């Protein structure tokens, strides 16, 4: 026994302690229990990780108890740690621990401090269930649980209407995704008669026809689920709004962990997905289009967290692109590096926001590098990492994705990815320059109070910065022979094989150089020119490209289109049919009538004579009539 259950047990205990006693034992208690529970989970994850590596077959499996045993269904609650979930375990507990530590400082002033930590611990618990579960049911438990926690945490500042709206939006969009996920799972059950991952994966090739309709349908449904959780077109709209939640939440849930669960699911079922080339193509295309769409929106946003949110959507798009071209391992590699640098960026932005007393508008920042040196340095590292400048973490994973796309022959997708990289570099350096360089546009009143964040917040930044620098060496590309490619070796034999791409070493080197210089450095320089000093040039450019600027600033009006094209019509119909017609027209009228008549005559019997009761009886009798007619007299 490897005691896998201990990993989720620690956060669960943390949740119970914080939720039940946090209010009474005070903030000190909460700020010990919260991070400690995740820290312990991290230690146990490390133990499991190395145990897993040294095991034959790289998989630990543990059965907890029989969940349900009935004639048609035998399901055990079982956890498994293999290459995929082992890596996720480390990311979730490791990054989660850092973010918990950070939250102590960031959230200390909040009244409902205990509630925040309780939710956060609960989230980690569900996330761990999601990745540890060895069957769809446990995954679904985690899937729903993280959704719930995300919903609760987005709406954490429930005094703000915008936060409530955002949390609702997140939940509703996710429900659409969940519906897809569930449909997929139901179909899988119908065809496989099992809900166990390893059984589904191993028998996928024999049960379902390669490229057949069923497997395409199943994987498309599952992918719909993934687009909901992982914020891809068409369901990405909730993620930018989710920034209404506290910044540590954005870092943990909406950058590093929960939003990657869609990718986790696809990676987990790689053997199923490779059977459906159509789905794979769709996954890749949706990923690429999401990546570039979100990147173009990020360019014009002025809210620092929104830029990062769109950047997250865009990076997730990259990961889906990798999945779609069959480079599952590379996609997961990017999940890891992205977890490092995006968590770092979010936490840094949080530190900036914290220092400026909750100012998120970059137009009201500037020239902060002297005042917030540690935040600046770490955020710069994060930015360099995400833009893909070697040897920082992002370079290796992103470059590998682009190379896999190219070598699989999808040149158009490669080009989109390349453009996205270019835009990424631009908007990230724009963010840096607007925040830390140029003239100070900070409100004079706040300016005097600017101070660097407490150590509890800075320490996680430094750790994440180090990870963002060195995390990429886990997967050095082949052509740089001086180090072995860890990630490929690590995932050896885990994923379904896709036909190997053809590409020459020369091409890979050319592309790499191209992406470093054209896609990373030149846009950075351009951003410097535009935003490094005064913002005159920026305003000039804004006017020159007013149309595109507005389009991007307003996020292509997608929210408006969804609202006008889908939500409002549904509302109208339901208002018209169910509310106006049935409810108001029939029921309300009668109910009011009851009240009026009863009051007027002061008698109960009179009140009953107005027809409600008779109406109920009529419907009853009508139902009887219909049933009898159908059952007895309807001709065969």
């Amino acid at each position: 026994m490897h005691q896998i259950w201990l990993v989720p047990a620690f956060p669960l205990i943390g949740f119970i302690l914080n939720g039940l006693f946090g209010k009474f034992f005070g903030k000190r208690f909460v700020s010990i229990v919260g991070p400690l529970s995740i820290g312990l989970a991290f230690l146990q994850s490390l133990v499991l990780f190395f145990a897993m590596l040294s095991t034959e077959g790289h998989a630990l499996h543990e059965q907890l108890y029989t969940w349900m045993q009935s004639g048609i269904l035998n399901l055990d609650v079982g956890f498994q740690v293999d290459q995929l979930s082992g890596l996720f375990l480390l990311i979730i507990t490791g990054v989660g621990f850092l973010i918990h530590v950070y939250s102590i400082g960031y959230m200390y002033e909040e009244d409902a401090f205990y509630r925040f930590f309780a939710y956060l611990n609960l989230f980690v618990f569900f996330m761990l269930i999601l990745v540890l579960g060895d069957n769809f049911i446990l995954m679904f438990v985690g899937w729903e649980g993280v959704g719930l926690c995300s919903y609760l945490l987005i709406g954490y500042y429930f005094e703000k209407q915008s936060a409530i709206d955002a949390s609702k939006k997140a939940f509703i969009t996710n429900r659409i995704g969940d519906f897809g996920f569930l449909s997929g799972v139901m179909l899988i059950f119908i065809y496989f008669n099992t809900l166990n991952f390893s059984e589904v994966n191993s028998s996928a090739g024999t049960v379902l026809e390669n490229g057949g309709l069923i497997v395409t349908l199943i994987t498309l449904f599952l992918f719909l689920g993934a687009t909901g959780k992982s914020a891809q077109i068409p369901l990405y709209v909730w993620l930018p709004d989710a920034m209404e939640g506290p910044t540590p939440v954005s870092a943990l849930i909406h950058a590093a962990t929960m939003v990657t669960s869609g990718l986790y699911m696809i990676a987990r079922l790689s053997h199923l997905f490779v059977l459906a080339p159509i789905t794979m193509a769709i996954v890749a295309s949706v990923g690429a289009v999401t990546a570039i769409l979100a990147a173009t929106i990020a360019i014009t946003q002025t809210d620092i967290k929104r830029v990062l949110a769109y950047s997250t959507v865009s990076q997730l798009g990259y990961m889906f692109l990798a999945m779609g071209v069959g480079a599952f391992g590379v996609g997961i590699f990017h999940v890891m590096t992205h977890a490092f640098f995006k968590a770092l960026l979010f936490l840094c932005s949080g530190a900036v926001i914290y220092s400026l007393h909750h100012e998120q508008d970059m137009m009201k920042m500037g020239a902060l590098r002297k005042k917030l040196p540690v935040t600046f340095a770490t955020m710069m590292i994060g930015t360099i990492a995400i833009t893909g400048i070697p040897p920082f973490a992002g370079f290796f994973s992103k470059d590998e994705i682009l190379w896999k796309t190219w070598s699989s022959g999808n040149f158009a997708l490669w080009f989109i990815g390349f453009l996205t990289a270019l835009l990424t570099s631009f908007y990230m350096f724009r963010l840096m320059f607007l925040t830390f360089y140029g003239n100070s546009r900070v409100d004079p009143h706040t300016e005097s109070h600017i101070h660097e964040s407490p150590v509890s917040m800075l320490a996680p930044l430094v750790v994440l910065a180090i990870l963002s620098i060195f995390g990429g060496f886990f997967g050095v590309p082949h052509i740089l022979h001086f180090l072995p490619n860890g990630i490929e070796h690590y995932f050896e034999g885990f994923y379904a094989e896709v036909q190997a791409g053809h590409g020459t070493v020369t091409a890979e080197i050319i592309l790499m150089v191209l992406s470093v210089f054209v896609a990373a450095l030149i846009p950075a320089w351009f951003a410097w020119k535009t935003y490094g000093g005064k913002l005159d040039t920026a305003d000039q450019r804004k006017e020159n490209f007013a149309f595109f600027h507005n389009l991007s600033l307003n996020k292509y009006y997608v929210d408006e289109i969804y609202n006008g094209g889908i939500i409002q019509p549904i509302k109208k119909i339901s208002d018209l049919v169910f509310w106006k017609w049935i409810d108001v027209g029939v029921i309300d009228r009668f109910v009011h009538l009851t009240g009026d008549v009863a009051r007027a005559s002061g008698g109960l019997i009179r009140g009953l004579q107005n027809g409600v009761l008779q109406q109920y009886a009529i419907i009853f009798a009508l139902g009887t009539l219909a049933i009898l007619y159908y059952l007895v007299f309807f001709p065969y």
Partner: protein
Amino acid sequence: MTFVTISDFIPIVPELILVLTALLVLLVDLVGTQTGYKMTSPLLAIGGLCVAVFAEIQLFGGNRVGFFDTIVADQYSILFEIIYMVTGIITITISWHYIAENNMNFREYYVLMLFSIVGMMLMTSSLDLLMIFIGLEIMSISSYIMVGMMRRVVTANEAALKYLLLGAFSTGFLLYGISLIYGATGSTQLPAIIEHLQQAGAFENPLVGFGLALLIIGVGFKVAIVPFHMWTPDVYTGAPTPVAAFMSAAVKAAGFAILIRIFLTGIPHAERWDNMMWVIAILTMTVGNVMALRQNNIKRMLAYSSIAHAGYVMVAVVVGSEAAITSIIYYSFAYALMGMGAFGVLSIRSNGKTIETYEDLAGYAHAGPTEQVAAVLMSTFMLSLLGLPLTAGFIGKFQIFYAALDEGWFWLTVIAAMNSVISLFYYLRVIVFMYMKERIGAQQEKESQTSVSSLFAITGLLATAAGIVYLGIFPNDFVQLAQLSVTAISF
């Protein structure tokens, strides 16, 4: 001519215990009007129920029969009877507070509740349509009276009268159905009826279809399936809240117990029959959910939601396999717990106010210590009702969908799943209002006080919530029991 012997009474020992308890409560009420403390009746009733549960457990596995093979104490009836009694115990814990707060000071309340449970138990353990009918009537008449107990409240009176009249209406159909079945088969005993109906060509006799249809209408009224559901919202809203809880939990469970006993244990189903039930299931789910979406009164919302849940169970009735029956039993229990819990929280007064609409719930979670606990409980019940994992509601839905898929009912399952998505909105609204809305006029309110009676209710509800979570995480024990009981009724 044969006579009844003492061994005939063994299968109905729990019923006898409850009847005696009820009579005792009635007498204590007479003797101790002045001196009797308010707690005697509820405690006595709970005590009686506990003894009866104990007796049931002793009977478990014995498969005893009595009264000329018309009464059986098989695993099936025992499991359901325990469900009724557990429901009764929890209802009593929440009733005391409600009765004290609303001056509904009839101690006959507990007597009626016990008799109502006796009725349910008799009809569940009976194999004779006549006995089933009488049990059903004992249950119904008790509940008519309980609904109308708050005589000074107009809505309660109206609810009771509506329930009574429509109930009588449906009883007519039921009785007519029974007489037609008797005419067609020459017996009122289920085994004989089923044996007759299993003969080839039995269904070509129109009497059979007609009679069975009327039976389903009569029982369908009790479990509130569309289109026989119209009374539910009015009655649940007007009735005292614990009574609504009791009705949505126990009465429905009893209705489904009968439905299974009559329709799913050997009567061969024509395709036409399946088609009709299929439509009814979908209608029931959809109407319940869509109407619940539009309610502002929470009790009304819960009433419609209980219709929707009846719809989910109807899905399993349509499927009719052994796994489906297992899931019905599981769902009946799960729904009994969560529905009762939700009504139970509403029965607790907050700051001297009764919670009626969503607005009354605004800021509920921050109103005081009692409310804080109650809000957590309510959230648990809501999450379970919407079927979130780790709760009994999830397992229940999961089993039903699973059973349906196993028999190839794909689209029915999809519609049910879509319905459960709709349900999310109105259940979550409760949580949103409790936690995320500001309390209106919080300044004017007095500091909320925790009464002993409300603590009593909270304790009962805590047990309910614990049960829901337990059933959600470790469902297997109960599933095994349910399976055992299904094998008991398979002819």
